[in-house]
């Protein structure tokens, strides 16, 4: 579980600034909500406006009192975290194009590698698990899984 590693409160201040920007952005967008008619006196804008106002106030308070936070990863650890995140997004984005088996083999293989498998071991885990889950979901549960438009020509 999370290890409390108190660090400078800079990350808290950055988060507060991001939250404040989100609150302002959402508040601004809420005023632009377009509707012809609403049967209730509040309308669709009121709740988002109230909530973004509240978030802005809380973000300001958080800016001044960010409290404790764990240190974000740096160096090789950051690189590994980024590698995992990029692999997740890339393989999922390619799911419909290349199909379930190749995309998930890569995702599982890279994750296994990051969690200590050797390269051949990771490749084996990737192929074995992708095939296992494919059979489970496609044949046992009968759910739709993409076969890849790249190979099927679809």
């Amino acid at each position, binding site marked *: 579980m999370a290890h409390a590693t108190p660090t400078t409160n800079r990350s808290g201040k950055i988060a507060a600034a991001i939250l404040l920007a989100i609150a302002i952005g959402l508040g601004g967008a809420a005023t632009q909500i377009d509707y012809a008619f609403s049967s209730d006196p509040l309308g669709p804008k009121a709740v988002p406006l109230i909530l973004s106002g509240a978030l802005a106030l*809380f973000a300001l308070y958080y800016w001044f009192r960010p409290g404790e936070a764990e240190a974000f*990863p740096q160096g090789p650890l950051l690189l590994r975290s980024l590698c995992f995140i990029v692999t997740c997004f890339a393989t999922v984005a390619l799911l419909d194009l290349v199909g379930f088996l190749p995309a998930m083999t890569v995702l599982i293989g890279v994750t296994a590698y990051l969690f200590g*498998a050797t390269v051949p071991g990771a490749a084996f885990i990737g192929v074995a698990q992708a095939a296992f*889950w494919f059979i489970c979901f496609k044949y046992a*549960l009968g759910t739709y899984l993409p076969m890849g438009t790249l190979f099927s020509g679809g």
Partner: protein
Amino acid sequence: MSLDYLWTGFSVALQPQNLAFGLIGCFLGTIIGALPAIGPINGIALLLPIAFAAKLPPESTMILLAAVYYGAEYGGRISSILLNVPGDAGAVMTAVDGYPAARQGRAAEALTISALSSFVGGILAVIGLTFFAPALGLIAIKFGPAEYVALMVFAFATLASMVGHEPIKTLIGCTLGLLLTTIGLDPTSGAYRFTLDQPELHDGIEFIILVIGLFSISEVLLMLEHQMAGRLKPIPVGKGFPSWADIKASFWPTIRSSASGFVIGVLPGTGASVASAVAYTTEKRLLDRGTFGKGDLRGIAAPEAANNAAAGGAFVPMLTLGVPGSGTTAVMLGALMLYNITPGPQLFTERPEIAGGLIASMYVGNVLLLLMNIPLIGVFARMLQVPNMWLIPAIVILSVLGVYTAYSSVMSVLIMLGIGVVGWGLRKLGFDMAPIVLGFVLGKVLETNLRNALAISGGDPSILVDSAISIILWIAAALIVALPWWLARRKRAGKMAPLSAEASG
């Protein structure tokens, strides 16, 4: 009310073929429930056409489907406790204490407490269903928008217990959860809010996408850091059974949560997620001495009992009024209609084998589930001893598959991953995920009903305190916030009194 229908029901449910269907349903339900995002509704939807095509009699079909429902409710806990991947919406609160308990090597204890409290919650709900179904059905239809607003305010009041040593982070989390519910089509006005012209956002962010992202993906990212830092140690399986003291300590939370869960389950549109959230936060408010959220077994017992009691409660409006109390009971209602059976009070007299068979099968199903799962707990707990290089890729792919199979959309999976990365950042900053989830669960019901209530009254807010039910709920909400504060103040004053007496003496 005569219980003749129930005796007829037991004679149906205890027939060997129906017992076998109950057992098969419990087993399949447990497996289906353990897979993330494949909840009871998917299991029932999957089996219904098979049962209909196999020309099973309606009572056997209902027994099979009810067993799948119960099995899946329990199965959802396995992945929630062991992997921090909630199998369905009702299992989210179980992860809050269940997962830390598993990481401490107490997975088997957590699973046992979960099984026992699920059993108690399930059985108490069926007893409630047996004796009070028609009366409760009539109360449920008295719940209009104003009463739902009061109920949601009550639920938010219980949230006060989530405020830790950094209340601002809880408030921000809750507000973020509430804001997320405003994304998508506003059903009252038909306006699109914050959809960024993305069709996938027109229906808003689905609960399961949020939960899998916040809990599962963020957890994998944290584990990756711990792996690199050498802090990710193999987890011991631990002893199998919780101690007698733990079971005793969980007794009253289980009973209280079963009662509240059943009542919330009876109300159409609220369901297991609200029931488990209210039960957890109420018990935390009543009992927490800094142990909740850190593997306290009472924090597992409460949401589990509530969640299973809500599952039973959801049958009350379905059987007595023909109004489904949850998505799953809506599918079961469809199953009854497939057999040309119309639910309602007359169901208990005209088709006692259906109403009685279903209720009797719930008693039997709960017992079967307990008998089947207790011996398997050791096997489930050993799942944690699978090396991380095998286990964690499985968590990742189940998260991806869970969302993809539920929504058949790559964009939904990408949104889930994005939420996971944001959740990781928030967890690093010391934010708790539970307030975000609770804000999300309660927010939509609150806004929709508040606006509907004001639409009915023409903008007059007095409608919110216009009925006895609303007033009781508002008072309960005020009490739940004020009482612990008042008690703490009294306790402090009690401690101060002898000191001042000593000083003056």
